[in-house]
């Protein structure tokens, strides 16, 4: 069930992606996000997943989340490329692909997005709000270097980068 937990995380993340997309002005993507989250409870390869709720005019989905042939799930850590269901909504089709390496997400791609007339549309790589406490974690505890607005050579002396260079 480890894989299941991993996929749950993956598709929650996918839902975040689509949730972000909804902020870009694409209409009513809330339906899509809900569908993707539901798919997250699927075991990979089962192919029987319900895609969850789709839009009112949607025709349902095809296929569940399934790993690509190249994937492996040894030692409980999933690796490979997982493709989510095509979710049909009244506004078009959405499909998300997630790449895992040893249980770590390495990429999330929107594979297929079509509008109501079946034309493909570009997903917006839109920047959405994130809470400070979400990023203020151990992730930032140890860093090799520091990126910030350009410091002058005088200002360098009071910069974090100077401290790191000293410590090095």
């Amino acid at each position, binding site marked *: 069930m480890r894989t299941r937990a991993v996929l749950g995380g993956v598709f929650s993340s996918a839902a975040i992606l689509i949730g972000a997309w909804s902020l870009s002005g694409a209409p009513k993507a809330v339906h899509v996000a809900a569908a993707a989250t539901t798919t997250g409870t699927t075991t990979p390869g089962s192919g029987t997943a319900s895609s969850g709720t789709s839009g009112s005019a949607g025709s349902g989905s095809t296929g569940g989340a399934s790993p690509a042939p190249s994937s492996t799930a040894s030692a409980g850590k999933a690796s490979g490329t997982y493709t989510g269901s095509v979710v049909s909504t009244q506004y078009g089709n959405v499909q998300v692909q997630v790449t895992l390496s040893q249980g*770590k997400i390495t990429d999330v791609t929107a594979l297929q997005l079509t509008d109501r007339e079946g034309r493909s549309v570009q997903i917006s790589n839109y920047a959405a709000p994130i809470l400070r406490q979400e*990023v203020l974690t151990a992730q930032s505890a140890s860093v090799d*270097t520091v*990126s910030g*607005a*350009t*410091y002058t050579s005088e*200002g360098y002396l009071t910069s*974090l980068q100077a401290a790191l260079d000293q410590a090095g």
Partner: protein
Amino acid sequence: MARLVFTSMGTVISVLRPGPELPASLERAVREEFTSRDARFSSYRADSELSRVARGDLSSLTAGPEFRATLHRALGWEEATAGAFSVRSPDGILDLAGIVKAEAIEGAGNILKQTGLHDWLLNAGGDVLVGGHNYGAPWKVGIVDPEDRSKVLAGIELLPGQRALATSGVSERGSHIWSASGRTPFSQVSVLAPDIVTADVLATAIMAGGHRTLEAACSRWDIDALCVTVTGELLTTPRLRLQLQVKPTHDGALPTSA
């Protein structure tokens, strides 16, 4: 960890290498990437090629090939960003500082690669380009908190495909960022990109152009961004959000409880 730190372009450049010191000849070559461009493009030097062109003493058409190549590249970015990145300051003076430092980092990185070095990190005044790893681990860059520059806002791993990270903000020099309206919604913009010129130029452009440029740039180029608004909120792109939010356990796996 071998470390080379020197001053050029009015800022400080740090070079990190996991392992022994860089050979002296290589150190000189890396410095030269910065000092030669500083001599040519500095607006602080009256005798630089840039100052002579800006004054009208020298035509940009008869300037040297290096000058024209950089000007051409900068003009290409100005067009691509609909003027959010500009080769001129608000008072109309030619200023290529926005791209010259990035080109120097790029040049220094190319020298390190050509020498066969796999693992290295270059930081010039807060703009970062890496190669390879830090003793097998991904290079990790802290983003300064613009509200408290003694703190780090987030840590970002520079993974293959996204080797460059540049941050633009209300800089100490103060002259790099300008916008048509004179107001910008962001106090700091960091851009993660495959190359340092793209990262640096787009960080500057988004800082100046605000939300519209942010959305346009993120749609057109393979970049990620972390923006801090003047009210202290953070905005980030989906892929970077995943890296920032997913908290791996010590063995790199996702937590078992979602």
